[in-house]
C-alpha cells in the first residue's frame, strides 16, 4: 500500500485505510453526509472510512444520533433529498454514489439489502406477512407464485417462525415475531452485502442468539459481507470480526471486535462497554452504569475533541485538539490524544498534555495548510508501529 506520513502527505489525500482495496466487497472512503435543514447544515457523518471483505462482519456501535443509520442509508443511496454526500462508496468496485438509477435499483435488490431498525413501521399492516416476504421474489421474476409461497415459508422457518405465520397480519405477531419477519424479507433475494441496522435490538436473548447464529452461517457459507449496526457493544463483540465505535459523526475507535469490547482505548468506547453489565458480576449488581450527559448536537459540536465535555479523562488540551484516528496498538486505532507517545505527539503537532501553549497548532476541523490536520477518522495502523 501507498505510504504516507502519519499526518498525511502534503497536498495529497492519504492512502486508504488499513489494507489494499483488493478483495474487498465494500470500500467506503472519507464518507461525509450533511442534512440541510431550516436551521442550517447538520453534519451527521464526518469523514468515515472502512472496508469489508466477503464473508466478514464489521460492527458499528455508538449512541443514538451519532450517525450510524446515516452511514447505512448512504451505502445504498437511500438518504432523503435534503442530504448532501461526499466521499466514495465502492460496492464490488463500482461507486454507488455515482451509479445511474437503473443500476442502483438492480444493486439494491441483489447486491445489497438492508434490515432496518423498527420492524413495526417497516411492515405493511394490511398485508399478510407471507405475501410481504414473497413480494420481492415475484417482482424480480425469481419465482412463480407457488414457489414464492414455498420460499416465504422456508424463510420464516429459517428465522424461527412457524410456516403458518405466513397467513398472519403484522398486528397478530408479538414485537419479536415481527422483527423476525423483517429479517426474512431481507434474506429473500440472497444479497451479497447485508447492512443490518439494529437487527436484533427488539429481540429477546434467545431469538437474538438464533438470529446471530443464522447470520453467522449465512455470512460464512455464502460469503456475504455484513455491516452490523447496534448500540449493543456486547452483541457486536460476540458477532463481528471488527468493531468501529462512532461518536458525533466520526469513527473514534476501530479494531478487532473482542479487543475493543474488552479493553477500549478511547474513553468513549470504554464507557460504552462498561454500560453492559455482566450477569453474575458482583461489581454490576445493583449498580447500573451509564455515561452522564447527552451526545452533542451535530449542528453545534464542541471545540477540539467532540467528546471532551463528557469525557471522564479529558485534559486541558482536549478542548483545543481535534484528535485523529491514531494507531493505538496492534491493528487498532483510536481518536484520542491519550494514545499518543511524546514522539508521536510531536510528529502530529499535538500540544503535550501538561503544556498550556501550542493553541495556535491546536487542530480544529479546518484544514491545516501543512496537511497535518484534515485526515479525520482514518486509521494508519501499520505506519507507526
Amino acid at each position, binding site marked *: 500500500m501507498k505510504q504516507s506520513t502519519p499526518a498525511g502527505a502534503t497536498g495529497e489525500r492519504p492512502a486508504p485505510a488499513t489494507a489494499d482495496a483488493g478483495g474487498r466487497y465494500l470500500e467506503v472512503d472519507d464518507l461525509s453526509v450533511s442534512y440541510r435543514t431550516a436551521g442550517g447544515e447538520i453534519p451527521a457523518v464526518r469523514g468515515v472510512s472502512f472496508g469489508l471483505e466477503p464473508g466478514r462482519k464489521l460492527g458499528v456501535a455508538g*449512541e*443514538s444520533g451519532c450517525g450510524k443509520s446515516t452511514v447505512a442509508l448512504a451505502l445504498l443511496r437511500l438518504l432523503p433529498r435534503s442530504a448532501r454526500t461526499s466521499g466514495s462508496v465502492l460496492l464490488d468496485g463500482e461507486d454507488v454514489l455515482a451509479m445511474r438509477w437503473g443500476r442502483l435499483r438492480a444493486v439494491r435488490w441483489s447486491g445489497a439489502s438492508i434490515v432496518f431498525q423498527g420492524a413495526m413501521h417497516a411492515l405493511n399492516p394490511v398485508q399478510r406477512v407471507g405475501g410481504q416476504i414473497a413480494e420481492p421474489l415475484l417482482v424480480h421474476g425469481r419465482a412463480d407464485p407457488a414457489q414464492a409461497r414455498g420460499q416465504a415459508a422456508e424463510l420464516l422457518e429459517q428465522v*424461527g417462525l412457524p410456516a403458518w405465520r405466513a397467513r398472519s397480519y403484522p398486528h397478530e405477531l408479538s414485537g419479536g415475531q415481527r422483527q423476525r419477519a423483517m429479517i426474512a424479507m431481507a434474506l429473500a433475494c440472497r444479497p451479497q452485502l447485508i447492512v443490518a441496522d439494529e437487527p436484533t435490538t427488539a429481540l429477546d*436473548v434467545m*431469538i437474538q442468539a438464533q438470529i446471530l447464529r443464522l447470520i453467522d452461517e449465512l455470512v460464512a457459507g455464502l460469503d456475504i459481507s455484513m455491516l452490523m449496526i447496534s448500540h449493543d457493544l456486547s452483541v457486536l463483540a460476540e458477532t463481528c470480526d471488527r468493531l468501529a465505535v462512532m461518536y458525533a459523526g466520526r469513527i473514534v475507535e476501530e479494531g478487532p471486535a473482542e479487543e475493543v469490547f474488552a479493553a477500549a482505548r478511547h474513553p468513549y468506547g470504554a464507557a460504552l462497554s462498561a454500560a453492559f*453489565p455482566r*450477569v*453474575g458480576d458482583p461489581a454490576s*449488581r445493583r449498580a447500573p452504569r451509564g455515561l452522564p450527559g447527552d451526545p452533542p448536537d451535530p449542528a453545534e459540536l464542541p471545540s477540539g475533541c467532540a467528546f471532551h465535555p463528557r469525557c471522564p479523562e479529558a485534559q486541558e488540551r482536549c478542548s483545543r485538539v481535534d484528535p485523529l484516528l491514531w494507531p493505538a496498538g496492534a491493528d487498532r486505532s483510536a481518536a484520542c490524544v491519550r494514545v499518543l507517545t511524546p514522539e508521536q505527539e510531536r510528529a502530529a503537532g499535538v500540544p503535550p498534555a501538561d503544556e498550556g501553549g501550542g493553541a495556535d497548532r491546536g487542530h480544529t476541523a479546518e484544514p491545516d495548510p501543512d496537511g497535518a490536520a484534515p485526515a479525520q477518522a482514518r486509521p494508519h495502523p501499520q505506519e507507526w508501529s
Partner: protein
Amino acid sequence: MSAPADPARGSAAGGAPVLSTAGLQIAFSGRSGRAAARAVDGVDLEIGAGEIVALVGESGCGKSTLARALLGLVRPTAGAVSFHGRGLVYRPRDLKAFRRRVQLVLQDPTGALNPRHTVYDAVAEGRRIHTGSTADERDHVAEALSRAGLRPPERFFLRYPHELSGGQRQRVAIAGALILQPEVIVADEPVASLDASVRGEILQLLLRLRDDYGLAALVVTHDLGLAWNIADRAAVMYLGRVVETGTVEEVLAAPRHPYTRALLSVLPESSAGEQQILAGEPPDPTRIPAGCRFHVRCPVLASGAAQAAGVADRCRSEDPGMLGGSPGVAQVACHWAHAPEPEPAEWAGPG
C-alpha cells in the same frame, strides 16, 4: 439507605404484598376456529412494598399481557389480581382509583408522549385526569420532574418532546407516572429503546426512587442484565407460566430451571459454558404442550439427563405445576430440578 428492611427480600418480612395475582389466566379467543391463545396460563406473582421484581422471559411468553392485567387493562379469564389483598373491581370508577396508585411506564417514550404537549402538560395531565385539580399544580409538576432527575425542573416546563433526548423523554414519562405518587409502577421494557449509556442512568433512577421513596416496581424485560442491575427478585416466565422465581442472585447466579440456564448461556459475552440455543418452534400459546410445557425444547430432556434422573416420562406427561408467588422462597417448576438423584449437573455460572 432508607430502603425497606432488606431490599433483597422485599416484602418478605413486611407481610401482605401490594400487588399480586392468584391463578391468573388470560386467554385471547382464536380467530376462525383456531384455538384460544392462553397468553397467561396460571400465574401467582407478588410484588411487595418497595420491592423491584423483574419479570423476564422470551418474546411472546406473556409478560406484557400479565403486566396489562396487573394494571386492570385486561380482565382475567380466570384467577384474580389483588391490590393490598383486595380483588380488583372492573368498574370504571374503581379502576380509575386503582390506576392512580399503580402506574404504567411504557417502552417507547416517544410514542407515549404527545408531540404537541409541553413537558409541563405531559406531566400534569395524569393528575388533572385523576384528581380534577390544578391546585399547586406547578409545585407538583416541578417535584415530579426533579424526582425523575430533570433538574432544575423549570427549565423543562415549556419544552416539547422533540427538543429532548431519548433519555430525557423517558424521564418525562416517568415523571408523568410519579406525579400521582403511586405505590407501584409497572414498567414494560423501560429502557429497551434507549442507548446503553442512557439506560444505566434510567436504571439508577428506578433504584433511587425505590431507595428514597419506597416505590415498588414490576419491570418487564427480556434483558437479564437489567434484572441483575436493579431487581431484588426475578420471575422467569415461559409460555404463560412462571417457571422459576427467587432472589436475583438465586435465579441468575445459580439457576435451576433448564430454561433459565439456557437463557443465561446465550447472553452475548456470557461465560456460562456452551451456548444452548433453543431450537424448535418458538412457544405458541395456542398450542401449549402437555406435560412440562418446556419439554419439546428442553436441553436436559434432549440430552438424556432427565432420563438418567428417572423423570423423563413425567417431563412428557405431568405438568410440574404452578409456582406460588410468595417472595423469600426460591422455586422452580421442573421435575428434574426436584429429582433427588443424580445431582443436577454442575452449573458453570454466568460470571
